[in-house]
């Protein structure tokens, strides 16, 4: 079995840069290209670079239905999440010191919240139902008079389930609470509209949607000015909210990636939904498999499945012809089960025997069919090696 070129099914972890995006990036790198510093306003090459940066800003703004002056470039959604939460908490703590988020958020939000707790903020972590959906009702129960900010992700990166963003947004608007949405997994995949969604802050990243890694943006509602306390000081770029030399090729790549995604969203989303159904239909034939998260409310290309009767590490190794993510963080000494799957109520053992398949722009029917074949063969093989389900094991599966 060759593991040279596994079938890539980890688009939720990152995507390759689209060739069209790579092309415009390469125009902004070398001597022949637009390489100058966009902050070098004293000469034409610098102003040319600034022009490219501002075009990209419009492209990103358009996808979110925002104004270009509301887009702040960052180094990725992790930084955007940090800037949104810390920046709002530090700037607006007079409004209150309570934050609402959920247990199934990305670590970029959770670890930032933990840091804010250290600084004296209070955080409520919502627990979704077994379908993984964070509803407006859950949020409504948690909002208090001193709630400053609600931070809920749009599409969960592990299970692909979407939250009730518009309802939550409306609620936050009514209750005069700032609303941050981590849209790293939805930007370019689901329609976004910061007005319709009543969003005040929205984090996006380029590399989840065929742009480069290492660049993202934060949407910040409102007029130009210091609306957030910056994380990174030094010269006052980006309306004082984020200093540092702008990486022209990176933001230009992000702009192009967002423009392409906007154009192709509808057809691509239908195509991926079809592929995902084909994949699930193939895998469920195995029996003893569980779909994690609500089956309907989900991003097109993401499928997270728990496999009964096979151990997680062996499953992952057996599937090494596939580039997929597992339900456990493989660190050297411990195999911690996914905190997202555990929040949904999966027990450790089943969470560890879970695989996230995420499809994308270059996934084909042939990939899916081959994937189904490999999964079927290997899960059957491993189950064949395993002891019969004992009373003990049966208890495990009754989740």
């Amino acid at each position, binding site marked *: *079995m060759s593991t040279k070129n596994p079938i890539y099914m980890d688009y939720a972890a990152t995507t390759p840069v689209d060739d069209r995006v790579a092309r415009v990036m390469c125009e902004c790198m070398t001597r022949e290209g637009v390489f100058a510093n966009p902050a070098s306003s004293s000469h034409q090459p610098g102003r040319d670079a600034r022009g490219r940066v501002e075009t990209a800003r419009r492209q990103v703004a358009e996808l979110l239905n925002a104004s270009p002056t509301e887009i702040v470039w960052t180094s990725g959604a992790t930084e955007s999440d940090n800037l949104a939460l810390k920046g709002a908490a530090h700037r607006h703590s007079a409004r209150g010191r309570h934050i609402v988020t959920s247990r199934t958020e990305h670590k970029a939000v959770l670890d930032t919240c933990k840091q804010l707790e250290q600084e004296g903020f209070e955080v409520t972590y919502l627990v979704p139902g077994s379908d993984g959906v964070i509803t407006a009702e859950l949020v409504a129960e948690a909002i208090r008079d001193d709630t400053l900010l609600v931070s809920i992700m749009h599409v969960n990166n592990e299970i692909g389930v979407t939250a009730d963003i518009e309802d939550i947004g409306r609620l936050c608007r009514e209750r005069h609470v700032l609303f941050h949405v981590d849209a790293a997994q939805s930007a370019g995949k689901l329609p976004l509209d910061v007005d319709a969604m009543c969003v005040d802050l929205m984090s996006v990243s380029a590399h989840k949607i065929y742009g480069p890694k290492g660049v993202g943006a934060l949407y910040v509602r409102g007029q130009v000015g210091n609306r957030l306390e910056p994380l990174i000081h030094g010269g006052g770029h980006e309306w004082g909210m984020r200093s540092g030399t702008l990486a022209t090729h990176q933001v230009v790549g992000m702009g192009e990636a967002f423009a392409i995604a906007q154009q192709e969203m509808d057809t691509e989303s239908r195509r991926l939904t079809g592929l995902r159904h084909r994949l699930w239909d193939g895998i469920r034939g195995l029996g003893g498999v569980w779909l994690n998260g609500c089956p309907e409310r989900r991003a097109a290309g993401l499928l997270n499945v728990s496999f009964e*009767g*096979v*151990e997680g*590490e*062996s499953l*992952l*190794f*057996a599937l090494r012809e596939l580039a997929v993510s597992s339900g456990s963080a*493989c*660190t*050297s*000494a411990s*195999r911690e089960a996914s905190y997202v799957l555990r929040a949904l109520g999966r*027990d450790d*053992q089943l969470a*560890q025997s879970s695989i996230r398949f995420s499809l994308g722009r270059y996934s084909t029917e042939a990939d899916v069919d081959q994937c189904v074949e490999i999964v079927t063969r290997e899960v059957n093989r491993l189950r*064949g*090696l*395993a*002891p*019969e389900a*004992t009373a*003990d*094991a049966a*208890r*495990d599966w009754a989740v």
Partner: protein
Amino acid sequence: MEDLSYSALVRERFEKPGNAGRLLGDVVTGMAGEKAHGTRVEFDFRLRDGRVERARFRAYGCPHTIAAASWVAEQAEGRDLEEQGWLDPHALADVLELPEYKLGVLLVVEDALRDATSKALRI
């Protein structure tokens, strides 16, 4: 996951685990571990003249568990039941090039072997 760089022997045994399966008829079965804790190992022994004539394993666990159980089942065949302690988990860890934190799974394999052996001796 530089840690998932399994040794050639582990890979080979994981792919084509010798002595996997179950023995029917007159066998003793030793077992250890719990699936809920990630590792479960069972050995079937068919005995003849105080020896292990045939041995088969079943395992739920990581690739090292499967490889180790397969290795042990193979090595058990033909051995005198009175030969105790022939399995040295540390030596096996060396053979399979196990990372240190995986020693625990070998202890489960060893327990299952002991269980089978002691049941066999009791017959």
